[in-house]
């Protein structure tokens, strides 16, 4: 005979809040994990309830990445901290040309955080993870006192496998290489900012948060051997990415302002706020440095993918010991795209 199950009150997702018992390692925590996280991520690894999850590793090169998500506000047009965490981690793996395999997610939750919001975030992560085909196989939960964590912080790790023959490297850009971008810049930053209380502007711009491993796979199939490096321009925007690469590869860039895809609404929002779209974060775009002979086929592969429809060729790599990112403006004049020293937009991802 089975022993009768003791009564366990269901989590009150409508009005309940996370409290310190949910992080204490006891029954309350187990219930939170099961009712919210296991349900949202829905896979056998998590249901096994171990402190770790095992998987077999094929021969070859693995990559691993880790990320922290502190975006404010937690819910923004086009996404939330959960979907952002899944997409961002997958993208870090994808930038190596690697196939993302597994994710982990660790939650640091503030006492008093509404259970309903936590459930929403978890479901969003679950959906993003399933859509991308990359499961969250292990996780952790901690609760800290009110005031110590601004809602919730999410920390992730991801692993992936690099197809043989690929060796993207940050120091691989060479003079003559072509610079490609997979779509419009500044969407994510503007979407998040539009919800910041002290800025308050209305716009229909959605965050471009998306998992890029599909478009990367298409690019690798088209011309993987000719791709020098991929990078996703998140915090600091396109300007930061190009400056980083210029320094890492000991080169310069010549970029054509007119060629950079930019939505009019994003341009207008930046206008209102006195920001340069080049410095605004993206969460569903990538920059590719490609050998000149393969630029056309790689660009075509990008444009054929739903996440790369507006892909464009925006410039070239040049020799430059100063590592300047030069830009030809729409006027035909020139300027340098600088690497901002500070964060214009805090808590953007």
């Amino acid at each position, binding site marked *: 005979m089975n022993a009768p199950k003791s009564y366990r009150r269901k989590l009150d997702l409508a009005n309940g809040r996370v409290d310190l018992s949910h992080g204490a390692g006891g029954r309350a925590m187990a219930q939170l994990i099961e009712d919210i996280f296991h349900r949202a991520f829905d896979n056998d690894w998590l249901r096994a309830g171990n402190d770790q999850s095992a998987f077999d590793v094929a021969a070859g090169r693995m990559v691993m990445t880790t990320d922290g998500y502190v975006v404010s506000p937690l819910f923004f047009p086009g996404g939330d901290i959960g979907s952002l965490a899944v997409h961002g981690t997958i993208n870090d793996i994808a930038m190596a040309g690697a196939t993302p395999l597994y994710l982990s997610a660790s939650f640091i939750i503030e006492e008093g955080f509404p259970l309903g919001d936590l459930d929403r975030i978890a479901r969003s992560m679950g959906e993003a993870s399933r859509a991308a085909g990359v499961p969250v196989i292990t996780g952790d939960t901690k609760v800290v006192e009110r005031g110590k964590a601004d809602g919730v912080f999410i920390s992730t790790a991801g692993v992936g496998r690099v197809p043989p023959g690929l060796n993207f490297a940050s120091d691989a850009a060479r003079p003559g290489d072509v610079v490609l971008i997979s779509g419009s810049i500044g969407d994510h930053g503007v979407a998040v900012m539009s919800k910041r209380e002290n800025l308050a502007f209305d716009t229909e711009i959605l965050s471009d948060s998306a998992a890029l491993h599909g478009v990367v796979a298409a690019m690798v199939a088209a011309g993987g051997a000719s791709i020098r490096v991929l990078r996703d321009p998140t915090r600091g925007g396109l300007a930061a990415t190009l400056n980083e690469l210029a320094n890492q590869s000991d080169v310069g860039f010549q970029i054509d302002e007119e060629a950079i895809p930019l939505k009019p609404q994003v341009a207008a929002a930046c206008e209102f706020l006195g920001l340069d779209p080049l410095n605004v974060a993206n969460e569903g775009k990538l920059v590719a440095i490609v050998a000149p002979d393969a630029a056309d086929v790689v660009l075509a592969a990008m444009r054929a993918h739903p996440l790369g429809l507006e892909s464009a060729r925006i410039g070239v790599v040049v020799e430059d010991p100063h590592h300047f990112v030069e830009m030809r403006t729409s006027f035909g004049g020139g*300027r340098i795209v600088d690497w901002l020293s500070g964060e214009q937009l805090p808590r953007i991802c």
Partner: protein
Amino acid sequence: MKYVDEYRDGKIARTLAAAIAAEVSPSLEYHFMEFCGGHTHAISRYGLEDLLPPNVHMIHGPGCPVCVLPIGRIDTAITLSRRPEVTLCTYGDLMRVPGSKGSSLMKAKAEGADIRMVYSTLDAVRIAEAEPHREVVFFAIGFETTTPPTALAIRFAREKGLGNFTIFCNHVLTPAAVQNILDSPDVKLLGTVKIDGFVGPAHVSTVIGAKPFRVFAKEFKKPVVVAGFEPLDVMQAILMLVRQVNQGRHEVENQYIRAVTELGNAKAQALVAEMFEVVVSFEWRGLGDVPDSALRLRAAYESFDAEKRFGLVSHPAKDNPACECGAILRGVKRPRDCKLFGAVCTPDNPMGSCMVSSEGACAAHWTYGRFREKNARVEAAA
């Protein structure tokens, strides 16, 4: 119609560039000073100097209100912000301006001071309303453009009966700065700074009108063309200045006819006049003490004056001795003449305010000028 893009058309820019190139006299050197942060920004952002012929030189004047704020006033603001009951509200530009001993509002914030960035003075009033237990001080800076917004904030605070809102007033006057430069030995006697004409400020002129600049044209015999802040406005203004110089005229012309009138915004001017009076003397970074160049609250509005409420005393503080911001603000030196530029002083580690503010000459040169030193000019389209 958006009245934004139309004034940024690259094709028209090249046509204007060709017109300027065609009209400059090859035997003359033209030096035009702008003293409007919006113009400094437009010139560098669009790379306008590349489109000008080599004998047309643009000089950045003291148009950046952040740049002309003396270190002593930043120090005062930092000291004020450290008082536990004070919430200091400020425009974003001021956060990283260096005070004495490497301090800044950003660093003070990291150390625990309640300093909040606002986009508009209205935000500061809202904070005062929402947090009645805080002493909210708005760090008011700027030329005639930003003074009316400050005045409005005080009016709103008064209407709402807020007793916890004050301003730390550092509003300055444009014509006084221009007068000071034109009167300076560098310009008048020594001829170290050659100025053949002025590009009149955009936003400031919408408020004060074109009239205040007539005295410069008449007394100092320099042409002034008030220009909008879009890049095509600036180029057209340069063309109009070239023509004035060639024809030996020194008049005030208004290129920004769509927004600037002869007398300006009377409503805004009246509001400012009601609350503020001119201060006999005010220290400007780089220019020293300039007479009749700044504002303070009238006695009737004393209760909104942070300096009175908190008994603030400002001590003049010295700039880094090698920092050339002062000379650069007067147009006497260029950023690359400063030993610190690019060496110790970079946007990452600014030594002076000219490097911090997006409208500062050194910041503009960092972004744009270094590029020009490296490359040849773009040929103007035929």
